């Protein structure tokens, strides 16, 4: 066999003096790094630095190090670039990777800071005073009518045009990740957490497994170009339908769930043949225009008694004009997925070089819809690397009604961002269908961790709102005056509608 030029990225070091020779590492590793011959012997080239073995080694005797192999310095030809050429020269293949864009593009969230009240306005202590995180997704009427209430005040007239809105107790929802790309136990963990949190999850394009039916009131069912897992029964169960046009990690391209991941259960849920590649075409072949999108939105509404229908797009160059069309097509919300959004599998060249940051997309879409007087007709969900409650608060200030978290969700369940979801061998049991691996996630345990995460972020959001002197998350929405930029150029500040710090 020809010798590969690609050297291992990591070195697995075992302190054999401490090692119990118990074989736990052999059993824990999904990548097959360890061979056992009286003691565990690592094969470095298979290591993904996912730390599963490190975490579960009872003797704490494993460390993973970067392979410090020296290369001749060359700023232009990075080691990554050289490695990619070798790999492609060996295989002739499109380089496939997973999770979000890791390249060092400017991170705008990290250059935005929030305001706080000092002296002239009192800040609010959320531990003592009510602080509302509840928000509603969906079309709001141009005007509301009120009727007298029994106490001599006023209340909203019945319906008031908001009856079909989706109530979220927190402005954080779980991002679409399909059954097939993640395991059923991941879906169950998320589903259980949504009910505890009063928020929503999104099935992704792989359909809704019957085990999720008890959680259907908290489920957004995705309709993607492959039309997987859709029939009148499932459409009738989901609370919300979402047309997936694009994904931040791979704008403009489709996807292939490899045949080996399509077992009987995934086949039945997706309604596709077992063992064949499940192909999502790049476009929906019944959507070649905004008029066609309107047609699908109304087809879904007609088929479901007028449930809310959202549209998910990747953030791309003309996103503001596209979003305007989507709202005019009748969408109840727009889901903007920035170029750092995650994926279960994408060509590296697409993930790392196509699309724009969600911060920019959010700001221009919110502004465009306001300028056109149609901002009330649809909500905006921002996603594509919301890493903390601070990112969530900044996204809301830039114009989002709510944010969606995908990568953070998986991190909470054990993901270590090893970017190998596409291999289907996830040692943490997240992005795999192998029963010996998927059973590593207990849905009760997963739901608790996700509930903890969102509770923690919610408390932090309340603190941020209190500091800003507002008592409801909806008061922060689109309030860019409460943001300032540090170190962003003038043009970017103008696009964001944010002043530089000091002004």
């Amino acid at each position, binding site marked *: 066999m020809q010798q590969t030029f690609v050297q291992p990225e990591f070195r697995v070091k075992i302190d054999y003096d401490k090692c119990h020779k118990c074989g736990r590492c052999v059993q824990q590793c999904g990548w097959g790094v360890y061979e056992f011959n009286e003691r565990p012997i690592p094969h470095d080239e298979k290591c993904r630095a996912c730390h599963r073995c490190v975490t579960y080694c009872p003797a704490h005797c494993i460390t993973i190090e970067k392979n410090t192999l020296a290369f001749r310095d060359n700023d232009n030809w990075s080691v990554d670039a050289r490695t990619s050429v070798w790999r492609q020269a060996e295989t002739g293949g499109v380089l496939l990777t997973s999770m979000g864009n890791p390249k060092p593009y400017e991170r705008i969230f990290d250059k935005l800071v929030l305001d706080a009240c000092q002296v002239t306005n009192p800040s609010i202590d959320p531990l003592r005073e009510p602080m509302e995180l509840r928000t509603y997704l969906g079309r709001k009427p141009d005007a509301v009518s009120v009727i007298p209430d029994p106490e001599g005040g006023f209340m909203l007239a019945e319906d008031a045009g908001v009856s079909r809105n989706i109530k979220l107790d927190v402005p954080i929802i779980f991002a679409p990740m399909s059954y097939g790309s993640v395991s059923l136990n991941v879906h169950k963990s998320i589903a259980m957490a949504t009910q505890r949190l009063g928020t929503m999850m999104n099935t992704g394009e792989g359909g809704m497994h019957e085990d999720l039916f008890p959680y259907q009131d908290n489920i957004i069912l995705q309709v993607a170009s*492959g039309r997987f897992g859709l029939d009148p*029964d499932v459409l009738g169960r989901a609370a919300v339908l979402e047309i997936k046009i694009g994904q931040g990690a791979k704008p403009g391209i489709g996807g292939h769930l490899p045949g080996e991941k399509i077992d009987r259960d995934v086949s039945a849920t997706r309604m596709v043949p077992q063992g064949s590649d499940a192909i999502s075409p790049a476009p929906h072949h019944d959507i070649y225009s905004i008029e066609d999108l309107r047609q699908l939105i*109304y087809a879904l509404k*007609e088929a479901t008694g007028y449930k809310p229908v959202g549209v998910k797009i990747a953030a791309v160059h003309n996103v503001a004009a596209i979003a305007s069309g989507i709202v005019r097509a009748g969408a109840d919300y727009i889901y903007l997925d920035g170029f750092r959004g995650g994926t279960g599998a994408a060509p590296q060249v697409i993930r790392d070089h196509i699309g724009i940051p969600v911060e920019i997309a959010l700001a221009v879409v919110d502004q465009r819809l306001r300028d056109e007087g149609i901002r009330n007709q649809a909500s905006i969900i921002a996603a594509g690397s919301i890493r903390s409650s601070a990112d969530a608060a900044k996204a809301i200030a830039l114009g989002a009604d709510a944010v969606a978290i995908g990568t953070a969700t998986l991190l909470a369940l054990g993901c270590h961002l090893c970017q190998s979801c596409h291999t289907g061998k996830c040692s943490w049991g997240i992005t795999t269908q192998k029963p010996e691996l998927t059973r590593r996630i207990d849905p009760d345990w997963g739901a608790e961790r996700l509930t903890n995460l969102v509770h923690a972020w919610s408390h932090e959001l309340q603190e941020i709102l209190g500091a800003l002197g507002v008592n409801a998350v909806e008061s922060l929405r689109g309030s860019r005056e409460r943001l300032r930029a540090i170190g962003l150029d003038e043009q970017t500040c103008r696009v964001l509608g944010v002043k530089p710090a000091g002004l």
Partner: protein
Amino acid sequence: MVKAATSVPPAGVIEGYRQVAPLVDRDGDAAVVDSTGVYFQQLNDTVRRLIDAGVRDVRITGVNGQRYIGAGLRAPGVRITVEGTAGNDLAMFADGVSIDVRGNAQDGVGNTMTGGTIAVHGDAGDVLGYGMRGGKVFVRGDVGYRVGIHMKAYEKHVPVLVCGGKARDFFGEYMAGGMLVLLGMNARDESQPIAGSFLGGGMHGGVIYVRGRVEPWQCGAEVGVAEAGEVHMAELRPVIEEYAAAIGMDADEILSVSLVRISPMSHRPYAKLYASM
């Protein structure tokens, strides 16, 4: 007269249709709905309410492009007759309903359909049977572009789509399962080839039968073409007999000319496209 649903906006004129409930003449478990000039929301709402109220046979007259007739219906044993030109997305997401179109149908017939039988006694437009995963669609005449794209089969669900006329480009693209049949018999234009380009492009499951023959330029890169053998004709005959009965043709005449069988060369067309990082 059936009352309009509360979800329907107040009466007005939209896209040339009136937002009013159609006139209904109900006789036991049969009903005639006059859709002349009525907007699709009011029309479809009325049809759904009639079916919920026990009507098994719905005849819709005066249809002129109203969309979504039968969309999302799960009503086994119910028969809908459409008189006129059915609009886009007829029977989209439907499961189990039987629809007879006495006229032409526009785009998206049987889009993402799960079950049921649709017979169109005229021509049908583009994206016919897109993502269909069960049921049958029979068309007497010509069909448009991107027909049968991404049809798929699973478990006992095997969709069947038979087109009596000719098809444009991308017939059976991305097909993952089920059966497509193209007869080329009731075509409007003798000079048009039976199928356009990219027939079965990206196909990775299912089978396409074409009456007569296809040229290599018409076929996608992922398929093989062979004469339909005896075992294949045995699979095809009951389908053709059902089609002929539904459309009013002679099954023996249809089968008097040999057919070619187009099938994918791999169920994993992209297995070797990628190099894992």
